[in-house]
């Protein structure tokens, strides 16, 4: 997939080499989970040990990799492609388990923790107390990202990829300590929120935004970039997903848009190609061409908007056959070629 990066986008080379935490967000329907999974594979193919996390309880990773639902436990799910490739582990984080683990770890509240659960306290703390849920989720990701060789027995990862909540909620999700500041001024949740904030604002984190070349998702991406910057969160790449094949060149598209392609000419070429053409077939081909050309005009408008965001940008193709495991590896290769890993 060489040459996918349009000249309009700002050029960048391998600026995510030292990134340890990749946060992937995007509007619903843009394929952010697919991109997160492909990014994890791409990183693994460079020899890294990678942890892919999800926090929305959708079991999206399990579905993408075609494995049984993931527990609150790191599971090996894939091996990167290539001879020196690393592995991809996956973890589905839920706030309830994270809180119980947290209580057990810091307060030795093993049994008592479960008793609290019976009273609905765990549910309460993770559901209603504002921001606590998000701190617990990001806290677990933080723990995995900060692990190093000194943590005996715990697996050490070179990179963590987080399939994060959608763009509309991402700043609130990551900047949750702002939310808490007015509420929890002290206490362990506050200090956990602070540590998470430090990691997020350090050079080791990048928040990537996935979009498609349509007006609403691009607008939401622009808003998201602005909000992240305002919150001093590190914006990474814009990943433009589901990009249609650029089968027709500008001159051909112009001919189709102006309706100046004589059907007889297409019919003649079809005959040359060994295809028995009918007027209906020719019309259908021309209609398809015009549809693509019209779509492309809109896509180019949005591409220009994305270029003004001033972030490194990569593009991933729409795979006509849909996403399966092979498709994920294909997208991973595309990400690697475009210096995302």
């Amino acid at each position: 997939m060489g040459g996918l990066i349009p000249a309009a986008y700002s050029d960048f080379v391998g600026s995510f080499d030292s990134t340890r935490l990749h946060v992937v967000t995007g509007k619903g329907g843009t394929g952010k989970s697919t991109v997160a999974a492909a990014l994890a594979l791409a990183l693994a193919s460079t020899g890294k040990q990678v942890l892919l996390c999800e926090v929305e309880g959708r079991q999206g990773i399990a579905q993408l990799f075609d494995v049984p639902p993931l527990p609150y436990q790191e599971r090996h799910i894939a091996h990167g492609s290539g001879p020196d490739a690393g592995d991809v582990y996956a973890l589905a984080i839920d706030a309830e388990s994270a809180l119980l683990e947290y209580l057990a770890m810091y307060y030795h509240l093993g049994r008592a923790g479960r008793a609290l659960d019976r009273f609905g306290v765990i549910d309460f703390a993770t559901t209603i107390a504002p921001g606590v849920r998000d701190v617990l989720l990001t806290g677990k990701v933080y723990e995995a990202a900060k692990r190093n060789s000194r943590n005996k027995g715990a697996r050490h990862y070179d990179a963590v990829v987080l399939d994060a909540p959608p763009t509309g909620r991402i700043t609130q999700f990551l900047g949750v300590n702002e939310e808490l500041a007015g509420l929890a001024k002290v206490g362990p949740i506050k200090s956990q929120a602070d540590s998470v904030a430090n990691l997020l604002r350090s050079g080791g984190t990048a928040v990537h935004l996935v979009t498609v070349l349509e007006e609403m998702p691009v607008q939401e991406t622009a808003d998201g970039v602005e909000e992240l910057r305002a919150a001093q969160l590190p914006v990474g790449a814009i990943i433009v997903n589901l990009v249609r094949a650029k089968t027709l060149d500008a001159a051909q598209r112009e001919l189709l848009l102006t309706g100046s392609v004589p059907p007889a000419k297409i019919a003649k070429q079809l005959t040359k190609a060994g295809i028995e053409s009918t007027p209906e077939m020719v019309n259908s081909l021309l209609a398809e061409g015009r549809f693509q050309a019209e779509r492309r005009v809109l896509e180019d408008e949005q591409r220009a908007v994305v270029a003004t965001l001033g972030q490194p940008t990569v593009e991933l193709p729409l795979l006509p056959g849909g996403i399966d495991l092979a498709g994920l590896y294909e997208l991973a290769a595309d990400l690697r070629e475009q210096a995302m890993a």
Partner: protein
Amino acid sequence: MARVTSPRVGPLAARPGVAANLDVDALIDDRDTRIVVCCGSGGVGKTTTAAALGLRAAERGRRVVVLTIDPARRLAQSMGIEALDNTPRPVPGVGEAEGGSLDAMMLDMKRTFDEVVESQASPEKAQQILNNPFYIAVSSSFAGTQEYMAMEKLGQLDKLARKSGAWDLIVVDTPPSRSALDFLDAPERLASFLDGRFMRLLLAPAKGGARFMTAGLGLMTGALTKIIGAQVLRDMQTFVSAFDTLFGGFRARAQRTFELLQAEGTAFLVVAAPEPDALREAAYFVERLTQERMPLAGLVINRVSTSPAGDLSAAAALAGAERLADSPSGALTAGLLRLHADRRRIVERETRLRERFATSHSGVRTVAVPALSTDVHDLDGLRTIGTLLAGD
């Protein structure tokens, strides 16, 4: 949080299915249809579907109000409204000739929550609640509040519609939740917390009922203090005691709205796109609606790729494109053949996904809305979508 799998609604054995047609016009022309709820996962075009449906109904003589959640600015503008707020605003010049009308509004969840408080408490007490930091956080950012407030607003609109007769059809868009099911579950969840046993226990010390401070409660508040800090706990207690007058109210309100959703005259439209995730969410939703005895009108599949005319297969088209590879004069035709092959493969994949859904949910009436090459910007764009929804 693992989702509890529910029993399949469909038949245990069946041939690949073709779904029965959903007749949208029959739905909106039926005067007994009073509420249409559009639900589905994020990014499938729910808001556009709701707006297009509302417009079409208005132009067929219904007096419609569309409740949207967080619409794109352009969509609000497309309805001739610069900015939507928490009050229904008329969309000028719609449906007058047919005796219909269209109003549109956007949910402001904080404003709606404030209004509930203001309507339930004395001005003094209301102010006390509105200023509480815990209340501010819950009302403006708590996940689930939006779903709860959408339901609250629907209840208000329905009441107003019955009283004033200003509207005879309410079209509701649902929040872009993590899961489509949140919209059904969140109100109950929020209500049960605000109303629940634990909150009541929490309330006891604030009421001076220290003698009820059992060891169990001490352990709980102790743990909570550790988790969220003493200040939050105090704010919460103040909030809860100030909210006391409204308590019971929340559960009852959620229950009433739930009943409104089950009522005759309500119709659910599940909106999806021809993608595995969106159709999976749609399947969960259809199953859940059936369990809850909620009236499911059908499934709208947006952005469906239309099948090209003729029977030229993807393989034959690609082979043809190959044959033209060396001829400059054949470049355009080769390109068109490649596009044709892509389109065929996309259509095949979408058809497979739709058939799978239709087979396992055979009773669900469905309409497929073809993808447009352009975005929707104005009323005409919404009209086009409306026409496609009606299957014309």
